[in-house]
């Protein structure tokens, strides 16, 4: 047995050693990403970050950076690659070459069929949205429509401000729009917009968006505590003046009208709008089998593959692209300003209602459903156990999904190449 044979067997080690001699930064990035993946699994398991995404994403990230071998059938990465997925297959300007590349890679990489048939056409985003729709109770928005929409509009501030800032960083308007939609904190919307407007940045934007959505789960409580004093955190929301139960038929009617109306106004975002309201309609229709299907296998199946795929796409080559580093900053900026905007909206309502509105509800305008609502309730409950803000927060949360869909639709129509 020669050293050459040994090196050929343990290609993960050999490629790492070779990277250290030719490109030490890339080798260090590979090790760093393996460690980051392991950390994500740990933080997900501990409940500090969103376990549903972080565990599959962390394992995918750690494994894909470990499993690099001397294999590059499309000659895209200097002779090294994996047997997982090739996001750049079929991204050339030549349609015939693209088709040949995709057919080749579909027969080699085991996760390529999931990427090609559910990611690159936005299907996975729509499936997640159907599942989310089946969990949404639109009754919370219907009980307080103006309040919920006001907070949601305020919580889009990050999306709006990041758009020109990203252009200042040198991104094209299309790329800037795809980056800024991270501020809406709605994963499927980010996938959809980046695929429509900036497919060349789809992978890094999607990775960063989901990474930050996980961090938002851990980071937003600190933002709330920083911006809202304890005295205000304990405010109990006022019960609605006229308490009237909204029937499932009324919720269904709203979902149908809103779906048709929004699709009529913004046809570009119609697949996402339809998917969301389809979930809502199924939920309110009472068809138990469909509800179980959407809330269980479809939502959790697509979330699991989404996390896994995003982790697998986190290879050192993608992350070390010079265009990716500013994305890390812009993603944080976008989510931070959106969170501040939402809480700012909460403060406006606090003053308008003369101290009867809890400003912490504002964070729920950031449409990471239902995470931001849960985060707000958790922070408030620590101060005042009797303050139940969840219904108000969920109203703002559902409205946030709607406003993000509106912005995505406007961006896609306004900036389509």
């Amino acid at each position: 047995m020669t050293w050459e044979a040994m090196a050929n067997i343990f290609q993960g080690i050999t490629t790492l050693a070779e990277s250290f001699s030719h490109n030490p930064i890339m080798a260090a990035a590979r090790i760093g990403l393996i460690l980051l993946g392991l950390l994500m699994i740990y933080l997900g398991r501990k409940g500090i970050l969103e376990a549903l995404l972080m565990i599959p994403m962390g394992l995918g990230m750690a494994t894909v950076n470990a499993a690099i071998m001397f294999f590059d059938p499309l000659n895209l990465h200097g002779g090294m690659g994996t047997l997982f997925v090739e996001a750049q297959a079929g991204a050339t300007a030549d349609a015939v070459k693209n088709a040949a590349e995709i057919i080749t890679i579909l027969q080699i990489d085991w996760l390529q069929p999931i990427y090609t048939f559910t990611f690159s056409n936005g299907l996975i985003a729509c499936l997640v949205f159907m599942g989310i729709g089946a969990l949404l109770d639109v009754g919370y928005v219907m009980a307080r429509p103006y309040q919920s929409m006001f907070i949601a509009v305020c919580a889009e501030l990050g999306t709006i401000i990041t758009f020109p800032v990203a252009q200042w960083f040198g991104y094209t308007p299309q790329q800037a729009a795809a980056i800024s939609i991270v501020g809406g904190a709605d994963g499927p919307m980010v996938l959809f917009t980046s695929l429509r407007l900036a497919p060349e940045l789809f992978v890094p934007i999607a990775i960063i968006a989901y990474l930050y959505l996980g961090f938002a789960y851990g980071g937003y409580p600190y933002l709330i505590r920083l911006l809202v004093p304890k005295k205000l955190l304990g405010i109990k929301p006022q019960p609605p003046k006229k308490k009237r139960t909204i029937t499932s038929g009324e919720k269904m009617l709203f979902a149908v009208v809103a779906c048709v109306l929004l699709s009529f106004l913004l046809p570009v975002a119609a697949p996402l709008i339809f998917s969301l309201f389809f979930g809502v309609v199924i939920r309110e229709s009472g068809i138990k089998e469909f509800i179980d299907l959407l809330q269980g296998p479809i939502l959790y199946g697509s979330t699991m593959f989404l996390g896994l795929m995003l982790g697998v796409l986190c290879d050192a080559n993608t992350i070390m692209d010079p265009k990716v580093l500013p994305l890390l900053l812009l993603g944080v900026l976008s989510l931070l300003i959106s969170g501040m905007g939402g809480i700012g909206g909460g403060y406006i309502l606090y003053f308008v209602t003369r101290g009867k509105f809890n400003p912490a509800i504002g964070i729920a305008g950031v449409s990471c459903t239902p995470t931001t609502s849960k985060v707000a309730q958790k922070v408030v409950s620590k101060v005042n156990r009797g303050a139940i803000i969840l219904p108000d927060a969920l109203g703002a949360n559902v409205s946030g999904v709607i406003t993000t869909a509106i912005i995505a639709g406007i961006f896609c129509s306004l900036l389509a190449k």
Partner: protein
Amino acid sequence: MSGWPEALLTYGLTTVIAFGIAGMIHLMVVLLEKRTESGKQEGSS
């Protein structure tokens, strides 16, 4: 810094559409309430 006109246009349109939907919901709830009330009155008379 370019991009502000598009950003402000997007924000303006989003605000108008969002409050348009809120108005639609409000109208829908009011109409449904009236229908329920008139149904109750018809039932009692």
